[in-house]
């Protein structure tokens, strides 16, 4: 029996599967697939559909600069992690924000069109937030794998075209 979980696994693997594809791969009919997807969207389980992009492979001069930023914060009676996260996450430059265990508190990823733009964003918008005590910025130099997709996958299909 297919479940909502199967639909999530499938869309997680390829968000461009059509309703028809999903129906063929599961026990659901097309209208059941539509219903399940709508429910998952309404419940905030599915929050978006995005392509996995290897910007480096795009042969133009337009740069896409990304950085991960380690953030340390100091909490007080009135402010918790959620409050700080809300303030940071609202910026469109921020592409992900996670609270993590270990030496620092938040792990932030930022995107911009130039290094200048990203640095300014960190120094002008993030660092001045009163609870933030320290930022350490790491510019991404090369990306090898994103969202489970390897960019330069050498696993070519070298099988014989017809075999027993």
């Amino acid at each position, binding site marked *: 029996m297919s479940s909502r979980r199967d639909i999530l*696994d499938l869309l997680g693997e390829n968000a461009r599967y059509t309703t028809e594809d999903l129906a063929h791969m599961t026990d659901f009919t097309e209208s059941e697939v539509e219903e399940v997807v709508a429910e998952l969207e309404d419940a905030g389980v599915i929050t978006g559909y995005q392509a996995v992009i290897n910007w480096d492979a795009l042969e133009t001069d337009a740069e896409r600069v990304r950085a991960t930023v380690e953030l340390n914060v100091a909490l007080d009676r009135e402010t918790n992690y959620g409050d700080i996260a809300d303030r940071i996450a609202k910026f469109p430059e921020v592409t992900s924000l996670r609270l993590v265990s270990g030496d620092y508190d938040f792990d932030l990823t930022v995107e911009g069109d130039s290094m200048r733009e990203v640095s300014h964003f960190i120094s002008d918008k993030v660092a001045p937030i009163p609870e933030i005590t320290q930022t350490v910025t790491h510019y991404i130099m090369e990306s090898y794998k994103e969202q489970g997709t390897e960019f330069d996958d050498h696993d070519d299909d070298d099988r*014989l075209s*017809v*075999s*027993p």
Partner: protein
Amino acid sequence: MTLEPADRVDAVPPSGIRRFFELAEEMDDIISLGVGEPDFSAPWAAREAAITSLERGQTSYTANKGKRELRTRISRFEDAARDLRYDPDEEILVTAGASEGLDLAFRALLNSGDKLAVAQPCYVSYVPGATFAGVDVVDVPTRAEDEFKLTREVLEASGAAEADALVYCYPNNPTGATMTGDELREVAAFCREHDLVVFSDEIYADLTYEHEHISIATLPGMRERTVVFNGFSKAFAMTGFRLGYAMGPEEAITAMNRVHQYTMLSAPTTAQHAAIEALDNCQADVREMTAQYDRRRNYVLSRFEDMGLSCFPASGAFYAFPECPWDDADEFAEAFLQEQKVAVVPGSAFGAGGDGHLRISYATGLDELKTAMNRLESFIS
């Protein structure tokens, strides 16, 4: 004396698959649904274990029966997965693929002139293997109306009662058929009544989608007359490593090992290191690949239904076996390849009972599968 093939070899025609391979090789950009191996690469952890073993210089022969660490893991794994209990020291032999294991069994356990009943359609090596061993083959064609399961009826009708041994494979290549416990009990009863030993090729045992795989060796009175064959090629996607194993009573394994120790010495060492890692740490990879096959299976079966192609619900391995819409499946497969650039293999390449069907391998990414199904639909409409 000239270097002519021996009569035993001359008696075996080239495989029917070969012709389609040659046709397909001449064409560019084909989509192949004719491949009998996984489209996945071996799990990375297993590949890395192989690399590490090479770095450490572990490049010698192993014990004839295979590394003991591997045999103990196979023993534990088969017990946990399928209730198959075999002693790693006396009852398990690690081979260069299930293929070698089957060849050893035919040569070490049958006399020339013995009769081997071969359930068909089946993997292409059983009949040639028997012929090379000087063993006579009794064809046992299974039937489309039984969904290609082996039944007492087809065994009786084919004269298998007179045979000394029976070889079959479930989950099946090329049909994707599987057998339930009750269905196997019928076969087991027949083999006990007529005193047949059984060579059970269970290479696809982990790839079942409707019910758990059951081994005939777990049924009453069968362990002592059965040799089970399995390996890392299919579930672990390790075909090129060439590693399999045979499990059976001590006398059988000892006899097979006698041939193995002189002809092979030991199965590939690097592959044995990879296999140890595969059994220890790659079960999640197997589950993920199995889930992918299951989706593709649903996809092709559902597309067949929509395009009016009759096909029983294949429940194992990575094959579906629809009826061919033309009378001549060979002609169909050839025309389909020429006109639509999609390779499939006609059922007749897999022996008796396969006529009029097509083997569709869904060990292919979903995008290609989708394109292939669209082409099939337009070709037959």
